[in-house]
Every structure is written in structure tokens, then in C-alpha cells.
């Protein structure tokens, strides 16, 4: 049984509490600095002398993550110590690869390019600070607000959107659907938390889900996914449906949801591919890239060619020629890293992703309130799905979905959203001040659920003490 340490009082104690995070963050920044030296060392070769300005992205990264660490230390934040350093490392590698692709060196680079990352870190820190100490639970009663916000975001896109490369983007290539990853998770988590008892009860000899309790969620999902489908945002649909399934499963522990979900997903995927030329083309490129190697297969094959050229160890940052892969700085950033750092580099990169995902799921597993568990599960699933869809797509294991690689890909809305959700999970990992007093949770505790008594019995006294 864990003894809950009170929040440290003195500044020295608080500084001491975050020591592991400081150590990890320091080494991550050292690694990224070395990477930057390696990268900039290639510049004079290309005839461009190195300027102070070139260190600006590195500086922004180091300062913003250090600031986040300082804020956590000052607040006596008790939450996860690994995530910040791992995120800094991932962002750093992403920065190196983006810098490599000329994101910071072009003619019309605005201040925006430099500001996205610090803004994201600030957003994460703020989210963690605001929601820590159990305050994140205030989001639960507002479940229908999140639902309306989700639909509103999609509506906004439909109103202002313009078509580009087979997808819909709002003005300035901002994708307002990115925050869906947060709002949908919040709504579904709150809804499932609220109705968990009804949702866990599968009646009858024929195992059918409790439709009476489920229908508001189903209606919302059908409406949302329908709107997304209209915009052909197949990647987002995949992420959100998988996340919803994970939430239902984690909340109710009913494997039936998984079975029905798999059936529906299979049928829907089959039907969709029959309907959408956009999807069909992607499947065709995936299964037969050599049918049209200089046309539709060009991007994926150039990415793979770069990987092959990179080999086991890679050529090093700044040495390879990843620019031959079209729009590599966003969706195909993984191919750039695999080309420049080699197979070894991609193994390490994915190892850090596994650590990040494992931390997120650990927070979910240990979260005190069921709502916190659900939110963390949802966010972890979003990040995991996104990672797999992107990396699998670039390596041609699965069809391309046009999903960005979290924290690595160049992008505004997706990066900010990723930081925001990370801040929320960090807040959950901080724990709660006093016994959970939220109304439905207390009720459930007294009624005692039949589904998994052991789990609840174990977790309840810890928080009730």
C-alpha cells in the first residue's frame, strides 16, 4: 500500500523532488545540442556560413523545456518525471529533422516557425498547472459542452475549409479538427464515467451492448464521424474510433465492446474503401507502389529509397538528401530520421515513443479517479495510434493515412494539441488532494460493482484514507 507523500513545502524540498526530471532533461538537451552541431556542420559545406540565428530553434527548445521544469519545481508538482525529458528529446529530434528540411532556413520564415514549439510547451505547462491537484475533474460535469465543442470544431472546418491534397484544411492550413483529440476524449471519458454501471451490464443470453445507455454516445459518434467522413479525414476517423473503443473497454472491462467494435470497424472500412476514390487510391499505392513508381508511388518509394540509402547507421544529420522525398517535413519526417540516423536511429526513436506511451498508460493505470483513468487512457491511445499510423504508413506496412508523427512532424495545430493533452495527463499524474468526492464516483463506491470487484476494492481505500 502506497503512502501518499504530502506536497513538499519548502522550495528546497520542491527542487529536490524534481531532481530525476532535471537529470533526464539535461542529458536530453545535451544530446540535441550535439545533434545541432552535427547538423550545422554541414552548412559551410553547402556554402552557407553558420550564424547565431541558426541556434535559435535549439535555444527556444532548451529555454522552454527548462522553464517548464522550473515551473513544475516551483509548484511542487508531484507528477510524472520522465515525460518532460522524453518529450524534449522527441521535439529536439523533430526540430533537427525539420531544420534539415529547411523549415527554419527558407526565405519567408516568420517568427511563427520559431514560436510554435515554445507556445506548445507553455500550453502544456499551463494545462498541467491549472489542472493539477485533482482540478482536472472539473471537466467531467461539462460533458455535453465538450460534445458541442467537438461538433462545433468540425462545423468550423466545414464552413471555412478548402481542399488541398485530397483533404480539407481551414484557412492558413490550420486544422481545427486537431483539438478533437482532446474534446472527444473528454466527452467520452465523462460520459462513460457517468454511465459506467449501465454500460457494463450486458443483458440477455445473446450478448448485446446496453443500447439504452449507449445511444447518446453512439449518436454523437455517428454524427461526428459522418461529418469527418464528409471531409475525407480518414486518419482522424481511425484515431477517434480506436480511442472510443479503448475508453469503453477501459471503463467497463467488457470485451464485448472490442468484438463489436472490430466487426463494425471492419465493415465500415470495407464499405468506405468501396465508396471513396481517395481511400482506394491510397490502398492501391500501398499494395502496388511499383505500378506507378514515378506518379502515385513516388513519395513512398522515395522515402524508402532514402531509408535504404541510410542503411544501418545513417549518414548523420545534414549529410543525407532527404529533400528528394516530397513534403517530408510533415508526414514523412520518420523517413528523414531513418535516412539520416539509419535503422539504429529509428530503433532508438521508437524506443522513446514506447517509453512515452508506456508512461501515459501507467498514469492511466494508476490514476485515482476513474475519470482520470479514462482521460489518460484516451490520450495515451490517441498518441499510440497516431505513432503507429504514421510510422507504419511511411514504412509501407499499412496504407498512408496522412497523420503526423506526434512531437516530431512539422505542424501547428497538431503539435499544440499534442502538448495540450500531454499537460492534461501530467496534471492527472499529480494525484488528488483529498478523497475523491465526486458525486457519481461516491455513489458507485457504496453500491459496489459486480464487474471487477477486486480492482475497485484495491483502488478505493487508497483514495478513501
Amino acid at each position, binding site marked *: 500500500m*502506497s503512502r*501518499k507523500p504530502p506536497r513538499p513545502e519548502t522550495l528546497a524540498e520542491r527542487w529536490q523532488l524534481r531532481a*530525476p526530471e532535471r*537529470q*533526464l532533461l539535461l*542529458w536530453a538537451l545535451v*544530446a540535441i545540442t*550535439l545533434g545541432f*552541431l*552535427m547538423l*550545422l*556542420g554541414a*552548412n*559551410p*559545406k553547402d556554402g552557407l*556560413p*553558420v550564424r547565431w540565428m541558426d541556434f535559435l530553434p535549439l535555444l527556444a527548445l532548451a529555454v522552454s523545456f527548462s522553464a517548464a521544469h522550473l515551473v513544475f519545481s516551483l509548484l511542487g508538482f508531484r507528477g510524472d518525471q*520522465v515525460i518532460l*525529458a522524453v518529450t524534449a528529446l522527441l521535439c529536439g529530434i523533430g526540430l533537427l529533422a525539420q531544420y534539415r528540411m529547411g523549415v527554419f532556413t527558407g526565405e519567408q520564415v516568420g517568427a511563427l516557425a520559431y514560436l510554435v514549439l515554445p507556445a506548445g510547451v507553455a500550453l502544456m505547462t499551463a494545462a498541467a498547472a491549472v489542472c493539477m491537484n485533482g482540478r482536472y475533474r472539473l471537466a467531467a460535469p461539462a460533458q455535453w459542452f465538450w460534445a458541442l465543442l467537438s461538433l462545433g470544431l468540425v462545423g468550423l472546418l466545414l464552413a471555412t475549409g478548402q481542399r488541398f491534397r485530397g483533404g480539407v484544411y481551414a484557412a492558413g492550413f490550420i486544422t481545427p479538427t486537431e483539438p478533437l483529440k482532446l474534446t472527444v476524449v473528454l466527452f467520452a471519458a465523462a460520459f462513460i464515467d457517468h454511465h459506467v454501471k449501465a454500460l457494463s451490464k450486458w443483458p440477455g443470453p445473446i450478448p448485446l451492448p446496453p443500447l439504452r445507455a449507449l445511444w447518446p454516445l453512439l449518436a454523437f459518434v455517428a454524427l461526428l464521424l459522418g461529418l469527418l467522413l464528409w471531409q475525407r479525414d480518414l486518419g482522424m476517423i481511425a484515431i477517434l474510433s480506436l480511442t472510443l473503443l479503448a475508453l469503453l473497454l*477501459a471503463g467497463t*472491462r467488457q470485451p464485448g465492446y472490442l468484438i463489436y467494435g472490430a466487426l463494425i470497424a471492419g465493415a465500415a472500412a470495407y464499405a468506405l474503401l468501396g465508396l471513396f476514390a481517395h481511400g482506394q487510391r491510397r490502398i492501391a499505392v500501398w499494395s502496388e507502389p*511499383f505500378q506507378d*513508381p*514515378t506518379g502515385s508511388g513516388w513519395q513512398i*518509394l522515395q522515402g*524508402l*529509397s532514402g*531509408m*535504404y*540509402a541510410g*542503411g*544501418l547507421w545513417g549518414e*548523420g*544529420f545534414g549529410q*543525407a*538528401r532527404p529533400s*528528394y522525398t516530397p513534403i517530408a517535413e510533415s508526414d514523412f519526417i520518420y523517413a528523414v530520421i531513418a535516412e539520416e540516423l539509419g*535503422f539504429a*536511429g*529509428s530503433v*532508438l526513436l*521508437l524506443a522513446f*515513443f*514506447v517509453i512515452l*506511451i*508506456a508512461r501515459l498508460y*501507467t*498514469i492511466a*493505470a*494508476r490514476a*485515482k479517479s476513474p475519470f482520470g483513468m479514462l482521460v489518460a487512457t484516451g490520450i495515451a491511445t490517441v498518441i499510440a495510434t497516431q505513432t*503507429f499510423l504514421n510510422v*507504419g504508413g511511411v514504412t*509501407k*506496412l499499412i496504407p498512408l493515412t496522412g497523420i503526423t508523427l506526434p512531437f516530431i512532424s512539422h505542424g501547428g495545430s497538431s503539435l499544440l494539441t499534442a502538448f495540450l493533452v500531454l499537460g492534461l495527463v501530467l496534471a492527472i*499524474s499529480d494525484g488528488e488532494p483529498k478523497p475523491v468526492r465526486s458525486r457519481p464516483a461516491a455513489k458507485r463506491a457504496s453500491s459496489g460493482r459486480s464487474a471487477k470487484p477486486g*480492482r475497485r476494492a484495491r*483502488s478505493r481505500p*487508497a*483514495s478513501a484514507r
Partner: protein
Amino acid sequence: MELLNTLFQSAPWGALRTGLHIVFLLLLVYLLKQIWDLRPVTGLKHLAKPRAGFGLVVAGIGLLLIGVLAYQATWQLSGTARPDFVAFMQSHDRRQFNPAHWIQRGRILDHRGRVLAQTREVAGPSDTEAQRWYPYGPGFAHVVGYADPRFGTSGMESAANVSLNGGTPESLREWGQLGRQLITGGKRPKGRDLVLTLDAELQTLAYRRLAGRPGAVVMLVPADGAVRVLTSSPSFDPNRVDGLLFSGPDPDARLLNRATAGLYPPGSTFKVVLAAQSLDRGQEPVLSCPGDGFTTSRRYPKIRDHEYYSARRAGRAWGGFGRIGLARALAKSSNVYFAQLGVLQGHAAFQQTIERFLFNSRVVLTEGLSGRQLMRTGRIPRIATSDQYGLAQASIGQGQVLVTPAHMALITAAIANDGVAMRPRLTPDEPVQVLGRMLGAHSAARLRQMMRQVVSGGTARGIDVPEIAIAGKTGTAQNPKGEPHSWFIAFAPADRPRLAVAVLVEHAGYGSAVAAPIARDLLLAARERGLL
């Protein structure tokens, strides 16, 4: 900043940069180790005890990503094993450091080491470029194929693409080599040479003797199936493959390999199959062959012998061969005899025979890592038992019977090899395989005597030479599109055959006049080169 710029441009920076690269990767590993070591303090113990099941989910995601990496490795590390991919990179990847560009594609050699295809360095617009060079040109274009950045690969260049490009490691030594290359990054794949069973000089002679006329020549070693000649005419120059070859209809069908895929009526060469059928049944019947021919029903025109027509053209009458046996019928190529023989022995026997002779199937000539080359065998639809006339026509190699030159060569080789058909193979490394027994050993011996008589005193006596005892069978195959096809199948020496050959020249008239001399010259040339 000045200092940095000087450092980056200094000489040792290259080595230093490699060092940085290694240190960077090592730092990442070190960071992983620290995260592992810090587990006791980062365990989030102040929260609740972990719920069950989440560990499993993380393990599942980890496995999924390991799967991604494993698949990625099949491109990134062993991409050489994907022939399409290597071809794509060779033609479309502008990265100078891509190892695919350094691949020194292996040569293709004939059985005596003469070069059929090799890669040459030629001066390109910007850099030296590798260019595939085929010294023997069009005569080998179908079987050797081409490797062109724009049009891909064909023939052996396609079937053996993987091993020509460096190949997949097959032996322990090569695995070790690959491992070292991976660690040092010094991937410099060198293609492996490919040796074929073909004979460059004989094949060149065969192609030259076809002289641009549509036709094909196939020569096999009966005992082991080695293909010495496989040429098809007209052909194209593999050194100058262009888009015109592939676009639009080509009246000459230059891309068609007539030797392995062209279907032709075999005419009288098919009589050896009927003779084999009869000998296997222990029958050498003496049949009456009247001058004005034979038919199964009054409704159908009579099947007559060649002599009938030449006599009529000369204004004379011809009394027929009279009562003759199998040997004389084969030597004289009597249509009347074989039509009667086929009908006499019936549909069941005929059906059984064409199955034994491997009609209506495909035979693998070579099986490479990245593809294979096939030959078609002849095509004979099932003849209805009520259709006696169809059977009579089929028995003399007309009507619905079609064969490929390669199939006729295979049948000839089987007769020469005591009745056993060996799988034709294009590379000496492939195992010697028995395709099946086409006829009995005794029947084969007797048939060889008969075929010798065709040359010594029958329809092919024009090509009889003192140097070698050639045995063979002529064919003059009627077809709906014009002059008859000229066929000749032969083996030599007649008593102990070491080579079997089939020659076809489309619409060239008598087999004895056009195809037979080509076969004779090839066998004589083979004798000069010690192949007989």
C-alpha cells in the same frame, strides 16, 4: 561563431562529425539506461495501485512497433532482395550515396564463359553512368532479356535480377560478409555473374540462318536438358530498347518469343508422336495406302500424300505407296498411313499419348529468385469420340494440333534420351530433373533407327552428310495464313545422340528445303566445337 565556422570547414571536421554521430546515438542509449535506472523514483507510487491490463496494452503496442521495425528492415537493410525496389532506386533515386547506384550488376555468360551481357561504365551528361551492354545483340534478346532503367527487366535479366544485383545471402560466408557491410556501412554490393547453358556461337549461327524470317530454333542436350540454343526471330536489339517496341501493334511481333510461346501446327514432325504411340503398343502394322488417299467419311475431303499432288501437277497419276510398314511410312512421311494408324488405334490411345507427351501445360525453363521463364507445350483440345476425321487430321499434325518449337525440341530430345524427357534448363546450377517418360526405351531405340532412315533415304536425304549420322523428321505444316511452315526436328549422332534440335521457319515451304539445312549446319557447327 567564427570559431565554429572555421571548425566546420577544417580538415578533421569530417572525422569529428562521424564521432559526433556515434556519440549522439550513444547518448540516446545512455538516456534510455538512465530512465531504466530511475525507475524506483519515477514509479508514481503516490497514486493508486496500478489497475490490471494496461501493461498488456503497452506490451501490445511495443510488439506492434517492433513489427514496424522488422518490416522497415526488409526495405532499409535487405532492400537488395526486392528487385523492383532496386530497379526503382537505380533509375529514380538521385542520392549519390545510395548503394543501389554502386551495384556492379553481374555479367551473363554462356556455358563457355563468353559474355552475353555486361555492365560498362560510359560517360554520361554529368557523371559516368553504368550501361548494360549485350555483345551478341538481337539473337539473345528474348532469352537473356534486357535491363533498362526506363523499361525494367525481362528474360534472364528479370528472372535472375536479385542475384545479378548482389543477391540474397545464401551461404554462411555471405551472411558474414553482409553483417560486416551493415556494421561498417560499407555496402558495396557486387552482383553475381550468371552462367547459362546456352552456346553463344551456335545461337548466333542459328539466328543468322533464320535471316530475319519469322521462326525459331531450339537445341537441347537430351541427357540433362541443358538448352544450347533458344532463339526467336525477328527480334529487337536489347542495346537499344525504346518505347516504340512496346507501344502500338507490331506486325512482326518482335517481343514474342516464338521458340517458347509461338503455337504452330507441327505437320509431319508430329508423326514421330504417332509412331511412338504405335511402338509403345507393340504395333508396327502394315497398312494399305492407296494413291487417292483416305477419309473417314464421304463427307470429308480425302487425306492424301504429297506425292499425289506433285504427280498431279506434273499431269501424271500416282499409284500410292501400297502396303507399307511404320518405318517406311515415316521415312516417306505418308499422310495416308498415319491418318489410318491414328484412327485404327482410336481416341483413347491418342488422348493417353498427348498426355504422356505433356501437351497442354507449361514447363519451367529457369526459376530465379525474382521470376522464372516458362515454355508452353503444344495445345490439343480433346477430340470428340464421334469425330473420326478430326482424329485422322490430328494424327498427321494438322487440324487442331498446335505445338511450340521448344516442345518439339523436348519431344525430339526425349526420343534421343531413351524416351525420358528431361526438364530443359537455362542455367547449369539448376538440378537435372526428369519431366516424365514420353515413350518406352525400346520404342525410342526403334524410333531412332526409323528417324535415321528419314535422313539416310527418306524425305530429308538432302541433308545427309558423311561427317555425322543425323536422324530427323521433316514437317511441312499447312496453315490458313499462307505458305506452309517449314519444320525439321533432328538429333545426332543417331546411335548415341548428344544434341537434339527443332527448327521452325514460318511460311517457308518444305521442311526438307529450308528448316532441315539449318539444323544440319547447326549440328555440323556443334561437331566442330566438340559438342557432338
